[in-house]
């Protein structure tokens, strides 16, 4: 028995690490290697070069799309989390069936196909879509607006809504972990409901807020399908550029270099999120 576990434990962790290495580390390393290669016609030249990175940093179009994408995804993360927080607080305050129903309703869109949801949005936001018709009917605008489709506004709107469950769930989880006794204790010490929210609820849900922000940021920066389908020619994002390098442009090494840049951004965001999600006193549990 003890002999078995003595060997079984290391064996199990070896398998786990091997799988992780094969599926994550090895592909990433090959990607990293690829970013130092170059393309000649239709063949890949394996002589190491910094050319891809130099081009990425010096090309004015690349850099402007890069920063615009970071700004866009940052805004998406911020707005989505801001909307998700009160929703999570509301669900957390419910009990029994109502809570269950709302939780299911929140997560239900995750079951739907991603492409289907985007098509649904296209028809809502389009020139003859529901949104425009409602605005026309209420007299807010006179002619159908193209403000909401085939540009970055559309990308912003669609991603903010599609990613909302990924922000609501981690926040809800961290809210659930806050013992009800803490709110009672705060009230007992004369705190109003708003003060309790500000001094107890928000600080203790920081891990959830950080997770929501980083989830939505990373998922939106990595997305190229949504910008492709609702962004139109004006909604160009960094993800779409990378995608095109592996497709039409057929420049895998340059695409890999841009991918490494994006991975670096994600690592920085995760580090920031870890920092933000740390509750003083080691109370993150």
């Amino acid at each position, binding site marked *: 028995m003890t002999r078995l576990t003595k060997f079984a434990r290391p064996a199990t962790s070896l398998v786990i690490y091997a799988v992780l290495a094969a599926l994550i580390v090895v592909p990433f390393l090959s990607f990293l290697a690829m970013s130092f290669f170059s393309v000649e016609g239709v063949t890949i030249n394996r002589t190491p070069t910094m050319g891809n990175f130099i081009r990425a940093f010096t090309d004015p179009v690349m850099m402007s799309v890069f920063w615009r994408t970071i700004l866009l995804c940052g805004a998406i993360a911020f707005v989505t989390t801001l909307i998700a927080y009160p929703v999570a607080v509301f669900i957390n305050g419910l009990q029994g069936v109502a809570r269950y129903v709302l939780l299911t309703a929140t997560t239900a869109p995750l079951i739907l196909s991603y492409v289907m949801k985007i098509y649904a949005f296209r028809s809502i936001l389009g020139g003859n879509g529901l949104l425009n018709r409602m605005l026309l009917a209420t007299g807010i605008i006179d002619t159908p607006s193209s403000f909401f489709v085939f540009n970055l506004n559309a990308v912003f709107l669609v991603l903010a809504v599609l990613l909302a469950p990924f922000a609501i769930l981690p926040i809800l989880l961290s809210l659930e972990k806050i013992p009800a006794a803490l709110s009672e204790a*705060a009230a*007992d*010490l*004369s705190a*109003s409901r708003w003060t309790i929210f500000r001094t107890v609820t928000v600080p203790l849900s920081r891990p959830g807020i950080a997770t929501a922000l980083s989830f939505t940021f990373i998922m939106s920066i990595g997305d190229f399908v949504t910008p492709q389908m609702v962004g139109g020619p004006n909604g160009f994002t960094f993800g779409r550029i990378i995608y095109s390098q592996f497709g039409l442009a057929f420049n895998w090494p340059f695409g890999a270099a841009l991918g490494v840049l994006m991975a670096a951004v994600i690592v920085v965001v995760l580090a920031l999120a870890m920092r933000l999600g740390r509750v*003083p006193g080691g109370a993150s549990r």
Partner: protein
Amino acid sequence: MSSKVPSKLLELRSVGKSYGTAQVLKDVDLKIEDGEFLVILGPSGSGKTTILRLIGGFIAPSQGEILLDGAIINDLPINRRPFNTVFQDYALFPHMTVRGNVAYGLSVRGVPKAEIVARSDKVLALVSLGPLADRYPAQLSGGQRQRVALARAIVCEPRLVLLDEPLAALDVNLRRQMQVFLKEIQREIRTTFLFITHDQEEAITLADRICVMDHGKIMQIGAPRDLYDRPGSAHVARFFGDNNLIEGRILSVAGGRATLDTPLGTLVACCDPSSGLADGDSAFLAIRPEKIRILAREDPCPDDAAALGVTITRKEFAGPLTHLSFVPDAAPSILLSAKRLSDEMALLSLGEPGLRACWGISDTWVVRA
């Protein structure tokens, strides 16, 4: 209506609490005096925590009134009641330091910063937590957290401190220390404490007055000594330490004494003239184990005492005291117990014939069955 008696801090008038059809508190009348240490004692489910939560404002009564200084406060929200609570699991804010926890109540009230520092430092010194002020709750031991919880509650100078079984999670030695400590603090700050517990020894150690509860009702309120010597019911007589209860029927009541017909023969015992016990009522004669002496054949029994022939069935040495179980010769099915100094018991042996149990009439007490 507003006949203010200054010594009454808080009053519950026929307060009840029901959840659906379950009535957890029935018609409770309770007066809490200014400056006293009142302990509510009862088993779990007796409604003791419900009383605390009603007073604290965490729940609202289903019926009755709660009065503070003679004014009804039923609808006063928690955060405006001048009471502070020490919670059972402390409920310290994990993301705040000891100082942050203690200062919370003051800063919420908008007390000036300099005053907050001065007052929290003073209270932290009082509970000897000054050196740990910058630690977080996770870095403290159970006893230290307990003291933070107390400091946080008393720093706001509440009229009444509510303590919900605060020592339940501590080990025995620490609990003893904390009991002494709590009592000292209460004397020092001269504030009214309402303390909830299921531990009768703890209640006796701490209380000026004890309120015994069972099944949502108050059974008896009084000083620990009164409850011990003159229990008002068989429940209280049994709940407070060990007791021998001998069932019988009252033959006559006169001059603070009752004569009972029991399986052990006719016995006389003290009784409360105001208890309304009358001839023919069934009742218990209560006699504490430490009041029973076991005498050998030749020892004389003092005056005004009862004596029975008995046989010892069990003898248990427990350090300075020895516990004896014995049966009266007149009714061998009734098991009684005695607790005396071990030296006194050393010569007695199991099954020895001709022994007598002897107790003074003044040490007995009659309670309603």
